[in-house]
């Protein structure tokens, strides 16, 4: 197998990209180790060599966290490109291609399902959909998920992976930060439990709103988490950034996340946390 791969790498460079994603093997973006896909999936999409946590589609993440069946809600909400935005690409075209690539209408899925004996509302963002950016649809779906958790008195869990607010919807995107935070304030006042999971990457307006407002904040190891992007910071200050800057471990050290948890242990941690807050003594 290894030989076959080496040959692919050397001899078929041009087709490498096509071969690998659909094939049995994939390369770790962090340590370049070739990984057998089926094994990788069994390992929760974590590199067995360097523990790199792959960015994965939201459906896979939902399956990791929930038991069996779940029900998606508000899947039909779609962006209507309110500014008729066009830069180098048309936003409407970007939406179309993201929809066909991911099979969802925007960068988050919100579902109702079970974790152990707990019924929960779960939102999982999808980085493949325009960088997991938050526009009106993500904001609205998060808000409705919060409302549903509040009405049903279920715990709320949101797993973020997002480059921040979606520029192509201008001021509307910015206001989703306000909207989701205001909804969480109400949820909080009524005693709702909100667990925020930060995965790679969680930056910009997503971090500066619902992602940082969890009663409990859990980060996956090595995830990039911050407000400003590292490139912008580097440009502004004019020198290199320290090693590990804006990674989960840095956030833990600085006091902005409760715990770092490997993806393989995440569900157990959620169960324990939910048991603690939601079961009678």
């Amino acid at each position: 197998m290894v030989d076959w791969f080496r040959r692919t790498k050397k001899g078929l460079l041009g087709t490498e990209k096509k071969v690998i994603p659909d094939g049995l093997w994939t390369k770790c973006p962090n340590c370049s180790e070739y990984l057998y896909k089926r094994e990788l999936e069994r390992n929760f999409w974590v590199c067995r060599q360097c523990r790199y946590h792959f960015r994965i589609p939201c459906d896979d993440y939902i399956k990791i966290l929930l038991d069996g069946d779940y029900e998606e809600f508000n899947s039909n909400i779609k962006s209507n490109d309110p500014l008729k935005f066009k830069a180098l690409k048309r936003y409407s075209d970007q939406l179309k291609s993201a929809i066909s690539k991911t099979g969802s209408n925007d960068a988050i899925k919100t579902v109702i399902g079970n974790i152990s004996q707990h019924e929960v509302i779960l939102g999982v963002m999808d980085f493949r959909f325009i960088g997991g950016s938050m526009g009106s649809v993500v904001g609205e779906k998060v808000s409705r998920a919060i409302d549903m958790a509040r009405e049903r008195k279920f715990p709320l869990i949101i797993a973020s992976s997002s480059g921040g607010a979606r520029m192509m919807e201008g001021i509307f995107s910015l206001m989703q930060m306000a909207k989701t935070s205001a909804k969480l304030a109400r949820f909080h006042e009524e005693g709702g439990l909100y667990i925020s999971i930060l995965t790679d990457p969680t930056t910009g307006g997503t971090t500066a709103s619902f992602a940082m407002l969890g009663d409990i904040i859990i980060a996956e190891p090595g995830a990039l988490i911050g407000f400003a992007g590292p490139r912008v910071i580097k440009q502004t200050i004019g020198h290199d950034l320290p090693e590990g800057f804006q990674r989960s471990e840095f956030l833990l050290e600085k006091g902005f996340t409760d715990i770092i948890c490997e993806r393989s242990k995440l569900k157990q941690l959620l169960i324990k946390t939910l048991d603690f807050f939601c079961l009678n003594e």
Partner: protein
Amino acid sequence: MAGIILDFERPIIELERKIEEMREISAADGVDLSQEIEKLEEKLNKLIEKIYSNLNRWQRVQLARHPNRPYTMDYIERITSDFIELHGDRYFADDKAIITGLATIEGRKIVLIGHQKGKNTKDNIYRNFGMPHPEGYRKALRVMKLAEKFNKPIVSLIDTPGAYPGIGAEERGQAEAIAKNLFEMSRLRVPVLIVIIGEGASGGALGIGIGDRILLLENTWYSVISPEGCASILYHDAGKAPIAAEAMKVTARDLEKLGIADEIITEPPGGAHRNPSKMAEILKEAILRNLDELSKIPIDELIKKRIAKFSQMGSWDE
């Protein structure tokens, strides 16, 4: 007027100089030029109206950033009496990019917060160009909670190129500080009035921008990212900022059309920087009128309305 002159302002400045010259000649030589001067002044007014009613979005952005434009402190000096500035977040430091304090406007006691830019390079370094660190947002929240405790309305003046992107800012939780403010401001039990007086860049603006009403001065911009930031990401060229400003629809008038702005405050002819005193007077009227209206609404209803206001923002199909 001293200072920087924008390209599109140049014909106005030239005409003004001409009028000024004629006045000087008239005074020095005792020649009566009043008719000519009157004519030129009429021409000037028409020119101002013509130029400023046809500005494109990028030109509005430039006006919003005009170095002679009044900043928070200029308004404080002009419209409040007995201003007591309060400093520090009580955790880390006093952020000079956000000013907070106790103010009295025509006998009405309010808590005032606002971004503060510098008037010159030295001052700008002191004010960090109006770009707050987390401690700025935390100071603002501390003082807003004080307002809540003593039942005083809050006025927040927004004018920032963005929250500062730096190492210290990230270490001390820029995202957490902003998120916390959005969360807490949405449920403050006093009226909160937001006025965009210059630039409203992204989370840096929104971090002190949740309130019952959002007012924008006429020549301001407010969006999810600066036109330059958008241009460098989506056009791979910060120089395309004028196009990005058009695409993102960033001006006060745009926000009115998009249903975000509650009121556009008309600026004096040619913009706030051409007549800061007049601008302050207009702003004072708008603040007092809006606070009067908000103070009549029972607080539970006000908060309900505030949450509903932000809840309906956005645009989607289903």
